[in-house]
Structures are given as C-alpha cells and as structure tokens.
C-alpha cells in the first residue's frame, strides 16, 4: 500500500493540473476569497492552457539547445585533442551562470528585441552549466577497465564514444538535464517582463492589479509542472542507471 502512495499522489496532481488549465472555471469558488472588489478570479487576458503550453515550449527549446551545446562541449574537452580547452570552456559556462537572468534579459532586449528570443537566450545560458558539469563528470569517471576493454577490442574513437562512453554516462547527463529543466521552468516566468508568452504573465498581471488569485494560479501551475517533470526525469534516470548495472545515486 505504501509503495502506491507516491504514485497515487502524482497521478492526482496530474489530473488536478490538467483540469485546472483546461477548465479553470471549476476552481473559481476556491480562489474567490483571495480577490477583492469583485476583481476577476481566473486570469482573463488569455487562456491558461495556451500559456502553459507556450511556457513548456520555451523551456523545451532552451533545454534542447543547452543540452546539445553542453554535451558537445563536454565531449570535445574530454578528447585528447580538446583537453587544453577544458579550463576555458569551464569558465565560459560559469560566466553564463554568474549573470543574473534579469541582466541577461536587459542586455538581450536591445540586441534581439522584445518577445520570446531574449528569454530563450537567458534560459539557454542558464541551462548550460548543470548539463556541462554533469556530462563532464560522467565522461571522466567511466570505469577504467571498461574503456580499456573498448580500446582493446578495436573500437575507433567514435565507436567508443557512441557505443560505450555516452551510454554509460547517460544517467549522469540526464541528472544535469533534470536540474536545468527545473531551473528553466522557474526562470522562464521572468521572461514575461520582456513580453514572452509564459505563465509569468499571469503572475505579473496579479502583481500589477494586486490580485492574489492570479499570482497563486500562475505560481501553482509552474510549481506543479516542475514537480512532475522532476519526478518523471528522475524515474527515467533510475531506469537507465539500472540498465547500466549501477545503482542510482
């Protein structure tokens, strides 16, 4: 019975989330006490479903791009030919992390204009570090005798990478992607300050009109998404780790 409880809770959360973004009207009585002066209870300047999907799309695009770049960088600097670029790429990625997302947005707007683009740039830079660090850890802590056996069997450098090194570091790289996604889900809300269509719009509208119900519904949808995606990716990670014969950390 105990083992089923977490799964049941997550299932309930999924149902609740889907119901809320598709039929927010059902929840009006619940949120009603949080508003004053007959202000609207449910966000009325756009559909919550559309905003949620746009929010997810922004995060997805930024994460996919960050994954490709971070993993490619990690592969490059772990090859003998690229080893001397390791410190450089590390500091580059660290710089991405030290810039506050708001500063990135402020700097990016004059360059690329308002809308989704500056948000994508900020999320992309923010997502790089955890994926890069984890990919680096994964690729440099492979069991030595397995790598030796791959060389000894006559695999070329490319074959070792695709058949042995990447599959074996997959669970660790996935862990980096998971962190990056969760950070991006939260950070994406700030994108609405530069007119990106994300759930941040609902929160900002609530702040501007002093409407607690708006703030809460925007925040809760983002939180529910983050929890569910985190759990989902953790499960995939554990599954791949088991397939690799390692216990998940």
């Amino acid at each position: 019975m105990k083992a089923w409880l977490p799964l049941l809770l997550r299932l309930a959360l999924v149902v609740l989330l889907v119901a809320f973004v598709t039929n927010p009207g059902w929840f009006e009585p619940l949120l009603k006490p949080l508003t004053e002066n007959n202000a609207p209870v449910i966000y009325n300047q756009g559909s919550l479903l559309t905003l949620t999907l746009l929010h997810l799309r922004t995060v997805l695009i930024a994460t996919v791009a960050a994954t490709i770049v971070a993993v490619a960088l990690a592969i490059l600097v772990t090859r003998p030919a690229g080893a001397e670029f390791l410190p450089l790429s590390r500091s580059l990625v660290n710089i991405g992390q030290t810039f506050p997302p708001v500063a990135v947005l402020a700097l990016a707007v004059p360059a690329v204009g308002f809308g989704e683009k500056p948000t994508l740039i900020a999320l992309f830079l923010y997502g790089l570090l955890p994926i890069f660090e984890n990919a680096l850890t994964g690729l440099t802590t492979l069991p030595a005798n397995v790598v030796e056996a791959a060389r000894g069997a006559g695999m070329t450098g490319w074959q070792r990478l695709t058949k042995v090194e990447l599959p074996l570091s997959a669970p660790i790289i996935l862990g980096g992607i998971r962190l990056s996604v969760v950070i991006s889900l939260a950070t994406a809300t700030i994108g609405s300050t530069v007119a990106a269509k994300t759930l941040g719009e609902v929160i900002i509208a609530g702040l501007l009109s002093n409407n607690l119900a708006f703030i809460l519904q925007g925040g809760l949808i983002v939180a529910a998404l983050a929890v569910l995606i985190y759990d989902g990716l953790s499960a995939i990670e554990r599954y791949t780790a088991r397939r690799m014969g390692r216990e998940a950390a």
Partner: protein
Amino acid sequence: MIEIEGITKRYDATTVVDDVSMVIEPRTVCVIVGTSGSGKTTLLRMINRLVEPTSGIIKLDGADNRSLPGYELRRSIGYAIQGHGLFPHRTVAQNIATVPVLLGWDKVRIKARVDELMTLYQLDPEAFGPRYPHELSGGQQQRVGVARALAAEPNVLLMDEPFGALDPIIRTKAQEDLLAIQKRFGTTIILVTHDMEEAVHMGDKIAVMDAGKLVQYARPAEILAKPASAFVETLVGASERPFRLLSLGRVRDAVEKGSAEGEAIPGDASQRDALAELLWSGRPALPVKGADGKPLGRVTVDGLVKRAARPA
C-alpha cells in the same frame, strides 16, 4: 609467431621497457612474470599497440604491427584484462559479439559463434545470453571476458592478469579451461601475471621481467633449475622450487615397476600431487592407473624426491 625486436618504451625520463627482444612460437603459451612496475603490462600492450613503443619493432607472423591502423590490428588480436572490463550496458551475448560486430560479420555467423563460445564455457546461451554482466558471478564474468576476447577467432590472445580477481578454487578451474581451449583452437597466448605458480603451471615458456629488462626467457624447468639472476631466484621462491619442479611433471613419467596398496592415482596427475598424497597418507608408494583404468605401476617417495632435486 610474434617477434619482438629491441622494444623500448620511455615516458619522459623513465624507461619502462628497456630494449626487450624475444620470439614467441605459434600455438604456445608465453607467460610474462614480474613484480609491479617491471614493465610487463606495458610490453603486452605494445603488442596490440594500446601503447606505442619509443623504438623497436614487433612483428606478427612476419608483418610489422604498424602496417595496419591500431584499431584494425586490435580487432585481430584477442585481449582480456583483469576485472574482465565487460560493458555493463550490454547483455552477455552482445558483449561476446563485440569484435565480430565491429568486423561486420552477418547475424547468423555471430549468433553461431556466440552460442559456440558460451557452450564451451558452460554458460547456457538461452539462460545467460540475455543477462547483463552485473547479474553474473565473478567466475562467470571472467569466462565471458575471455569468450569476448576469443570471439573473432584471433590467432593471438593477450591476457593481462586475467585471473587476478578470482578466488583460488575458481582460478584453478579457469586456468584449466584456458589451457583446454588453447589446445583446441591452437591460439598463441601471451599472459601477464605476478604469480610464479601460475606462470609455471600455464607457460610453455616464461619471460621474467625486472625494471623494464627481460632477465630470463626460458622453459619453466630451466627457470626453476637455472635462474639467471638472484632476482629470478627470489621470484621462484627457494622453498617452493622443488615442488614447482615436480608440478611440471606427470605421474606417468615417474612410474616404476611394481605394485602398491591403496587407491590408484591417475597417470596424468602432476608428480607434485602424487608426492603430496604419499606424504599425507604416510605410505612409501602409490599405485598408478592409466586413463583406461589399467594399472601402470607405482610411484614411490624416493623416486619423486630424486626428481625434485636440482637437475644437473
């Protein structure tokens, strides 16, 4: 035939392998023994070019081993290492099929070869083929490691302390299995170990290395009888020497005329085992039987003790 000619490997100022020359006859087992840091593993790894020598030439059947790209050379040479190095994300069958897949064999041929090797190593292909390495015992993993090294029917098999991680009982069995398979396929085996017992037991010839130099390269009996230096003598172990010498001989070669009481010992048991049995049971002589169970004669304590003495 493997000809090693004047091979040297230096890392900066340290010379790891120093001007080693030796010839390994085809279809024999050559064991390289030495202490840690003697350069034995580096020498082995230069044969399949996992390490490139600083100078010198290695020829395989007359051809310079640098005439092929390194990865192609390594596909033609079996390689088994300590702790097996199996790919944890691939099944046993996929692990064994590694080199045949790289060589582009067709599926039917690969399946047949994998099944053959697994059967040879007493692993049921149906039961063990789809399992992952971490689901096997240490001894089974080691067998899969050797099966993987032999999968593409290499003429030469390099082994780096392949039995190092096994407990003594499984190790003896693994050594016997390897010798049987070596006879069956006629593979040339070069095996690195630090265990003189293993070297005497497995090797047709033993190469002793010390501080990067080849100190002695000879048949086991000669290494035991005429160690080339004090180092070799220490490695052999003065107190073990007579017993190791006896372990090289078979009982049937020490048979004397006559008969004795008690249970018979088979003719292909080692003379060391026969002496141990005599001493333990307190008898002066043991009957010997052939493979067909017929009595061949007897072995005596006196006869075996004479054989354990340093050869002239």
